[in-house]
């Protein structure tokens, strides 16, 4: 079977731009959840978020791209540049039809969309941007990456709420198996504008606690919902043969297992997260005992935390595996979250360290989880399991392993 290795990682996270800054901050437990600055949050009950600071799109992208892109597309394009540069891929290294682009989306370019909706209804149809037809639709990031880098292989976009970031990487691996050499994949998301904020609040899942240290506490007895954030990760995924054509290419790790499942609406049925994890392990041909860390979905909602704890306990036994949720530092990043978790898992393996779950002080004892709290745990990590869930019933699991 064709293997899939990660050779480039581009990250835009509230606690760091680029894999180096992100990883340093993440290992140190630097939280980036703060009062919202992107819009005036005075009239909304939720007032904190994880914003990517210091991102000046104009420094990275040509001026002509700015009027036609939403913030999330700009983050995506810069992240992709990063990943490609890290992987040492030069134009023409790889035939353009052998490069796939597979991204995840949740709500598209929402801020761009709000601006155009406002123009349409307040000023009139003649004021609507000519770019509206594509700047806010879900497929935009894949299209823009393809144009920017001249890739003419397969393109796809998957939407499965917050599980999509994992699904996109799973689908990219599928493309490698179908014969492409390299895939640009993952998700970067942002929906920090008033119109999106009203929707986030309506999800019923945002925390009503506006203390940045007390708002998003997965697996804690004070869990009260999550905090929304922006950012994510774009990766270069390729076959080892492709990577070996560029001598000196760094291989961060390998994607060895993936599966997704869905929760029944019937309460009598068991939620699908455990099954997704088991299927991903089976796909990897690995036993649970070979997993050194679990990057949890960590919903921060008591009943979902309980369900996840039960799934983890069901596979690994009580306190059977270190569990972590570095997203406590950034908030949940929607289509970007699963991808950033996979990137974190790969960096964990590469740098032999598990980043901490911050702010959690009183984990629910009945969950019986070995939650990595307060400080990073150092030591050899050979393989990690990444879990993700999306509102509506989506479950995804991915197994990553050191490359050997």
């Amino acid at each position, binding site marked *: 079977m064709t293997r899939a290795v990660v050779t480039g990682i581009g990250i835009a996270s509230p606690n760091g731009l680029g894999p180096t800054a992100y990883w340093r901050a993440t290992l140190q437990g630097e939280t980036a959840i703060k009062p919202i600055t992107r*819009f005036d949050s005075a*009239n*909304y009950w939720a007032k904190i978020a994880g914003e990517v600071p210091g991102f000046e799109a104009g420094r990275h992208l040509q001026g002509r791209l700015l009027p036609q892109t939403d913030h999330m597309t700009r983050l995506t394009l810069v992240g992709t540049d990063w990943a490609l540069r890290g992987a040492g891929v030069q134009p023409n290294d790889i035939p353009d*039809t052998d490069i796939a682009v597979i991204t995840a989306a*949740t*709500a*598209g370019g929402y801020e761009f969309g*709000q601006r155009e*909706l406002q123009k349409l*209804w*307040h000023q009139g*149809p003649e004021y*609507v941007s000519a770019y*509206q*037809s*594509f700047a806010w*639709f*879900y*497929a*935009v990031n*894949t*299209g*823009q990456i*393809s*144009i920017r*880098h001249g*890739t*003419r*292989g*397969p*393109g*796809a*976009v*998957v*939407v*499965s*709420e917050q599980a*999509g970031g994992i*699904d996109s990487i799973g689908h990219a691996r*599928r493309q490698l*198996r179908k014969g492409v050499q390299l895939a640009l994949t993952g998700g970067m998301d942002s*929906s920090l504008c008033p*119109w*999106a*904020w*009203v*929707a986030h*609040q*309506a*999800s*019923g899942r945002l925390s009503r606690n506006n203390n940045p240290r007390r708002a998003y506490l997965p697996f804690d007895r004070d869990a009260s919902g999550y905090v929304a954030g922006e950012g994510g990760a774009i990766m270069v995924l390729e076959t080892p043969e492709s990577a070996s054509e560029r001598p000196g290419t760094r291989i961060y790790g390998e994607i060895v297992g993936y*599966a997704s*499942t*869905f929760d029944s609406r019937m309460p009598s*049925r068991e939620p*699908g997260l455990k099954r997704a994890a088991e299927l991903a392990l089976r796909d990897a041909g690995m036993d649970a005992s070979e997993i050194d860390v679990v990057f949890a979905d960590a919903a921060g909602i008591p009943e979902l935390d309980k369900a996840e704890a039960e799934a983890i306990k069901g596979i690994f036994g009580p306190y059977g595996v270190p569990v972590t949720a570095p997203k406590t530092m950034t908030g949940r990043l929607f289509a970007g979250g699963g991808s950033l978790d996979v990137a974190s898992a790969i960096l964990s393996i590469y740098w032999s360290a598990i980043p901490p779950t911050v702010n959690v002080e009183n984990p629910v004892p009945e969950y019986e989880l070995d939650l990595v709290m307060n400080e990073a745990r150092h030591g050899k990590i050979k393989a990690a399991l990444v879990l993700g869930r*999306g509102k*509506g*019933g*989506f479950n995804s699991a991915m197994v990553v392993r050191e490359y050997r």
Partner: protein
Amino acid sequence: MSRRAVITGVGVVAPGGIGTKAYWNLLSEGRTATRIITHFDASPYRSRMAGEADFDPVREGLTPQEIRRLDRAAQFAVVAGREAMSDSGIEFDQLDPGRIGVSLGTAVGCTTSLEREFIVGSDRGKYWEVDQSYAVPHLYDYFTPSSMATELAWTVGAEGPVSVVSTGCTSGLDSVGYAAELIMEGSADVVVTGGTEAPLSPITVVCFDVIRASSTRNDDPTTACRPFDKTRDGLVLGEGCAIIVLEELEHARARGAHIYGEVAGFASRCNAYHMTGLHPEGIEMSDAINIALKQARADATDVGYINAHGSGTKQNDLHETAAFKRSLGAHAYKTPVSGFKSMIGHSLGAIGSLEIVGSLLAFEQDLIPPTANLHEQDPECDLDYTPLVAREKKVDTVLTVGSGFGGFQSAMVLKKVEGAGR
């Protein structure tokens, strides 16, 4: 032995009629269902026409709860999904739910509901800071289109892989291609797939107005969409939904199912050219066609019918005509081509699935639906576009293509299955 994905059930909501039967009647008779928009007052806009579905959710069996909760596109998916389930003859509750998946295509998701709620919350765009007190409980479900896949998954009882595939105007082909991959790789035995779209709201109409992609033949809406005709002046929007039950071949044979055909080959390509523009040479679409044919182990000369994208823009007509010639060579001139958007408009992320279903029915009936409104063929488009009247022809391999904003080019090869429906 390799696993193959076959179609055993279809369901349709389309302009001109609800249900597969009404849809086929329209296509086979070459009637058009485009008209002046009635869903809202379109008089301020440049293009005021669309293919609208006469869809009454109450008559189609949706509960008042479902009607209040679901965007129109999600309502379509539930109704067409039920028809497809029943048509397949599968007793879904007897299957292992973990082996049932869903892959649903949509380009703009629940935009219609989002726009409606925006108007209220912002007081017709007066306030940037949208008022939180007007937020409806299901606003977040409109925010992300994966909620529609959830709804369809609930309808069929899926607990396997579930996702929305959203690649603009090729979503309806790509979602079915994705579903076929799930079956072939063994992740599911049955995948309920297809595409749904109900994009007829001012913001989407204006999107196409401002780039002058849509037709302005407002005084003659029933003949406004004229692919391959030299008088064409743009696309006409549409709405609709087609849901397809895709099943592993042996699974279908074991229960003696009626098999419409096989998804024998599928490929997508990015054109890396322009977010809305097409290169007249059609290289990427041709690449996608070649790969899909190869996967289907079919030669260009096996193709008996080409279901075109046929959106009604000159750019598209030249693009795909070039792609067909590039891939099929001399055989392209002998192969009937037709475009359904001339009859039902362009329903963005749904149309690809509607075109698949129409092509499968062409298998069944040995009849190729025509391109409507094609009176004066553009001399630059020199293939056989099956003008006006359906044509009797026995076909066992169909090529269907799609092309969309973002540069997406997709091709699918559908084949008749030997010994189907014993």
